[in-house]
């Protein structure tokens, strides 16, 4: 089964859309069956069987009663669908903001996701961690959606509908996942060359696991003095990437402070292993052609050293 099926919702917005979609689909299916049958009947019943009947049928020019009937009935159906839709629009868009809610600011970049937790002082990338929300004591997550460059769209189908990230136009959405696990999605608004590999990963954790993750992310790693760290600091890496507690303060690329706590690199395009990490630094186009990460042109020795240094960022 598909991990991104909109018909397997696991969060209130996705569930209310699912409920509404069943009502809408049943309605249009009923209309389809009726009109399809009439059309099929007319096409079969009134066909000129052998093509030899040259007589003209009775000419009928119209009928006010019939016209009225097939105007009024569709109007009633439209009203019903409209009311159902409005209910869900208001429920999702005007949802109250409970005190236990988690706030996350999502910034879309070509072609990766930046996540900031303002209340928790956490900055991370590409893998969003949120706590599970118990319907009895809801702890939803409210997302503020920004863009650093072009339009993007945040879409994790099992958690909710998509909302666009548009520069100069902050947007909002919320999710309250009811089960733990990994939820997948991807950018749903064309944003440039690597739109296809701007993947979304949302880790829904139990409260304890989430708190542990928060604690881990709040630590500042020990600055070392390895060869790899020297290479990292002395190349252009620091212009784009941040490693907190070090001079690396770049904002253009993902924050690498806790890189090793992430399962993937390159916005979900590859697993986070020493081999892919090394390949990514050496030749990003091998993993994600057209990404904004430049090939650094390091020697094999420096590549190994930088990879080893990155492996220490936990």
């Amino acid at each position, binding site marked *: 089964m598909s*991990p991104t099926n909109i018909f397997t919702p696991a969060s209130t917005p996705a569930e209310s859309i699912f409920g*509404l979609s069943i009502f809408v689909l049943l309605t249009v299916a009923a209309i389809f069956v009726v009109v399809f049958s009439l059309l099929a009947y007319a096409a079969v019943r009134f066909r000129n069987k052998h093509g030899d009947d040259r007589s003209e049928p009775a000419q*009928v020019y119209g009928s006010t009663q019939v016209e009225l009937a097939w105007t009024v009935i569709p109007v009633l159906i439209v009203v019903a669908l409209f009311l159902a839709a409005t209910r869900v629009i208001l429920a999702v868009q005007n949802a109250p903001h409970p005190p236990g809610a988690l706030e996350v600011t999502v910034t879309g970049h070509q072609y990766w996701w930046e996540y900031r937790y303002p209340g928790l002082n956490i900055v991370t990338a590409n893998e969003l961690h949120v706590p599970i929300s118990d319907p009895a004591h809801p702890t939803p997550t409210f997302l503020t959606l920004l863009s650093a460059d072009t339009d993007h769209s945040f879409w994790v189908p099992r958690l909710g509908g998509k909302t666009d990230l548009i520069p100069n136009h902050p947007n909002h959405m919320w999710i309250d996942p009811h089960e733990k696990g990994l939820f*997948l999605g991807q950018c749903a608004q064309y944003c440039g060359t690597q*739109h296809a590999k701007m993947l979304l990963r949302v880790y829904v954790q139990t409260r304890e696991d989430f708190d542990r993750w928060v604690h881990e992310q709040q630590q500042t790693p020990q600055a070392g003095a390895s060869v790899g760290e020297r290479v990292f600091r002395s190349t252009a890496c620091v212009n784009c990437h941040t490693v907190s507690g070090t001079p690396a303060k770049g904002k253009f690329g993902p924050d690498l402070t806790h890189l090793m706590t992430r399962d993937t690199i390159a916005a979900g395009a590859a697993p986070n292993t020493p081999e892919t990490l090394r390949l990514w630094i050496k030749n990003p186009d091998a993993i994600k052609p057209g990404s904004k990460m430049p090939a650094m042109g390091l020697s094999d020795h420096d590549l190994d050293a930088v990879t080893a240094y990155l492996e220490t960022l936990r």
Partner: protein
Amino acid sequence: MSANTIALTESPARPLTLRLHEWATTVDHKRLGILYVLYGLIFLVLGGIEATIMRVQLIRPHNDFVSPEVFNRMFTMHGTTMIFFVAMPLVFGFANYLVPLMIGARDMAFPRLNAFSFWMTALGGLLLYFSFFGGDGLYGAGSAPDVGWFAYAPLTAKTFSVGHSTDFWTLSLLSSGIGSIGTAINIIATILSMRCPGMTLGKMPLLVWLNLVMAGLVILAVSPLSAAQLMLIVDRYLGGHFFDTQAGGSAVIWMHFFWIFGHPEVYVLVLPAFAFASEIIPVFSRKAIFGYPVMVLATIAIGFIGMSVWAHHMFTVGMSAGANTFFVLSTMAIAVPTGIKIFNWLATMWGGHIRFATPMLFCVAFLFQFLIAGLTGVTLAVAPLDWQLGNSYYVVAHFHYVIVGGILFCIFAAFYYWFPKVSGKLYDEALGKWHFWLFVIGFHLTFDFMHVPGILGMPRRIYTYEPDRGWDTWNLIVTIGVVFQAAGILVFAANLVWSYFRGKRAGNDPWDAWTLEWSTSSPPPEYNYAEIPSVRSRRPLWDLKHPEDPDWRYE
């Protein structure tokens, strides 16, 4: 026979250069109509090749048939080509050819504006495709445009689109937009002032009514698009900041400008398709159209409501709940007049003696397919469903259902129906049926199954996808359908060419039809009618053929 036969046999004897010169300088509405249609067919092949490249790339996950850059150019060029340089020229071509004939006129109101408009449209298409050679300018930054056919800001800003590909896209749409507005003005003027004696507005064939509303929509819809293109040029070259978000411009304003064009554009294309169905279904059912006044009112209603639904393309951009509900209601409202039309066509068939020649086959398939397209449209009008399905393959499947299953099927019907009039020859019925069945199979393989990956979370415009998403089998089936569609198009082209040279003579009125164009010779002489006809009803030829029971007694 006599006068026209002489004209026919005389022209091929003249040297080729002279004949080409005649075509290039013609102001005859029939020749311009044919030029529009041939132009549209050439671009149909180009747009089809682009679609095929995309489908080959998506046949399996992590395929590397083309690079992401090439894929992004393909979907941009495919969309732009199919809308602006296939659908629009075909629609205008038929309107140009048929409207004066059907209202008993000798030409359009402004023949030279007509020629100017065609050549502006032609220039637009050439500019778009010249980008493959000139688009990278001095930057080496890639050739054809790759910003998507709705070219959302700020991806079109100099920062994100270096080189000149976006400029070629902009100029191309600006040029063809001038052509479209010119033709629209011409169609309106022609219909309002060139009708033959007796043809009041209420006695015009439905095709003429629908093209009148279509032309009105073109003026309302293409003008803001052209304005937006000019603003984009100002942004890119004159230091403007309309859409430049880095300097405080608004990306959302571009969306409004584009979709106030983009959605009425759907009706610009579908109304002429309805027009073809409204002529063909009655003739092949052997009955007058059911509910003519209601059909006219429904058309006008579609025109009005069609101007107020554009932001249903923007349910995910963060509009207020109030705005979202408004556009849900206006979008659903349009289903009512559209439904009325389907019911009236159905009632026209009801009790008739339906002849399933190729034009009617395409029209009946259109009815079934447009029903489905309309219903998936209703599902997308429900904003919360659009939050899930918007920008997914479900939307791609939906609008291809409208444009291919609805509009293109009607255009094929129109090709077969009026081919005898335009060429003077009958097409080959067996080949026509081959085309129909191949295309029906291909269409349904491709576009029925395309809904599913959308429901399973597949966004559009991705050059590749992950293997674990459950999308691969669906995409394989979708791609297989392309083979059947391509085969259908080949049979269609072969039929047109073969029948043009080898087909039997058609005579004036091969379908025993009722509108004025069938009263003149096939092909019609340059002046259309030796004597301007006069009419007393909506079906003047019915009146002639049935003097004992004429229509004007009942209208």
